[in-house]
């Protein structure tokens, strides 16, 4: 099945699937791929975007199109570059920064229209409803694993969870099971921040050497589980995707903070790890605020998907564990 790339949590996978394509979330965090984007993106651009562009350039023939949104500036720029330098068609939907439901709904209609043109077929309600069943079934399946992380003691590492949910993000509609128990009594923390790339396991491993991540709100990990489609057809999809707990980039983002606060009350973490990609400016300034707002011990980590500063990262995480234990 041909792949259709997508870059944002507001792009409904059900619609991409209904058009007959396999939705592949572009979440690459491979330092080696970044070099391939150097002729088109400056070196201090977002490492996720550089890596994703490198991946697309290397695998152009596998993609029938790439869909993105205006939610993140640099991701949108990547699509413009793809449009300019490759034969891959791009579809950019306008993601309203403010609370403008009607704009989002119109943009989803536009996406369906463009996909129908691309596939040469019609996307009808029957196909949509079938895909809702498939993808909601997958979400329920992976929710069960996410819950294992938050049990006390936690029974699944986020390192393993990350491997499992990569299947969802890469469009594998077969549920992939994992039966190994990974009980941990390490300090229980939340992970927030920039997207976690497919190749980010090393960072999660360093964190979970000292702490157990029991919940996250990161693209690439469990963010997709917050979409809960209750209605049918395109309207059901539109409503569920629009109503999902918001991206930090939206304004005002009061609902984002309220959602995290609710989770803190519910899950009672002992601390928070805020992971930011280098040059991910939005997260950089917001994260400082997060630490102060929630009143929990907070660790800021910055990385660019490279391994260069792994010993320093480890020192920070180790020191944070010592700080929590004191």
């Amino acid at each position, binding site marked *: 099945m041909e792949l259709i790339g997508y870059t944002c949590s507001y792009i409904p996978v059900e619609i991409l699937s209904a058009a007959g394509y396999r939705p592949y979330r572009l979440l690459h965090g491979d330092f080696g791929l970044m070099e391939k984007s150097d002729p088109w993106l400056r070196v201090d651009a977002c490492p996720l975007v550089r890596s994703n562009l490198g991946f697309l350039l290397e695998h152009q023939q596998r993609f029938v199109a790439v869909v993105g949104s205006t939610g993140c500036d640099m991701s949108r720029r990547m699509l413009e570059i793809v449009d300019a330098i490759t034969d891959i068609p791009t579809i950019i939907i306008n993601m309203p920064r403010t609370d403008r439901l009607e704009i989002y709904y119109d943009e989803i209609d536009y996406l369906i229209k463009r996909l129908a043109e691309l596939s040469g077929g019609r996307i009808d309600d029957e196909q949509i409803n079938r895909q809702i069943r498939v993808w909601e079934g997958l979400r329920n399946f992976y929710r069960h694993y996410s819950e294992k992380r938050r049990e006390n003691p936690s029974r699944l590492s986020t390192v393993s969870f990350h491997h499992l949910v990569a299947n969802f993000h890469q469009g594998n509609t077969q549920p992939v099971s994992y039966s190994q128990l990974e009980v941990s009594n390490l300090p229980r923390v939340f992970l927030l921040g920039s997207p976690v790339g497919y190749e980010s396991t090393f960072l999660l491993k360093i964190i979970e050497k000292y702490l157990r991540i029991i919940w996250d709100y990161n693209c690439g990990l469990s963010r997709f589980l917050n979409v809960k489609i209750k209605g049918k057809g395109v309207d059901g999809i539109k409503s569920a995707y629009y109503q999902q707990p918001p991206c930090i980039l939206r304004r005002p983002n009061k609902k984002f903070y309220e959602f995290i606060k609710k989770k803190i009350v519910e899950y009672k973490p002992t601390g928070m790890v805020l992971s930011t990609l280098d040059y991910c400016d939005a997260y950089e300034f917001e994260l400082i605020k997060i630490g102060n707002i929630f009143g929990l011990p907070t660790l800021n980590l*910055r990385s660019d998907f490279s391994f*260069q*500063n792994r010993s320093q990262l480890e*020192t*920070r995480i180790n020191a944070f564990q010592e700080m929590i234990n004191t």
Partner: protein
Amino acid sequence: MVLGIDIGSCYTKAVLFDGQIKEKMVIKTSLRPVEAIEQVKEKLTGYKEIAATGYGRNLIHNAQKVITEITAFAYGAMYIEPGIKTIIDIGGQDSKVIKLNRGVVERFVMNDRCAAGTGNFIEKTARALDLSLESFGQLAVKSDKPETIDSLCVVMAETEILSLAAENKKLEDIVAGLCDALVRRIAALGAQVKIEPPILLCGGGALNQGIIKSMNRILGKVIVPEAPQFLGALGAALCLNPICRN
């Protein structure tokens, strides 16, 4: 008696501690931390237990206690001056700002991806000016009007130094300007944790009189312990103290 070792990226520092510092030594790590550790163990003897800290802390296999330098600095600072609220460490490869609340680490930030704000910045620029580290500091203290060095990048700072030299600016003012640039960088880093006095300055950077003068001017009066580069090793030794253990 206990041995506290701080295996830093540039230097390995160690103290023999028995209620007070009995002996101390410092040697270059030179990318061979295991050799540095062996030299310390040969030279400093008579200890019953070892505590390790620093980037090479996990290389001491028979250590009774291994802690990060952040926690070690907190222990050391509390021993030297119990009321300390902020520790600033200027190391060779990184710098840290640690905020304490009654002796306990409350928050910390580290700069490790860029030479700006680290001892490396001073080493590189001193080399470009053909100055030893000692004379660099002594010269900076003489300046009453430090030049403004905008570049935080060590490479770009060298270019800026060349421009200032071409304008026949006084060497002491250029050098003091470099110290100010480094301290401004640390102040920006420390803004994330809100630097509060009393501030304790430690690490190899605290041996540089020019940096101390810039710190006092930009951040307010800083406290510099007698042997600032040994704070981590001292803190490690202190963590073997029964009170700290509990």
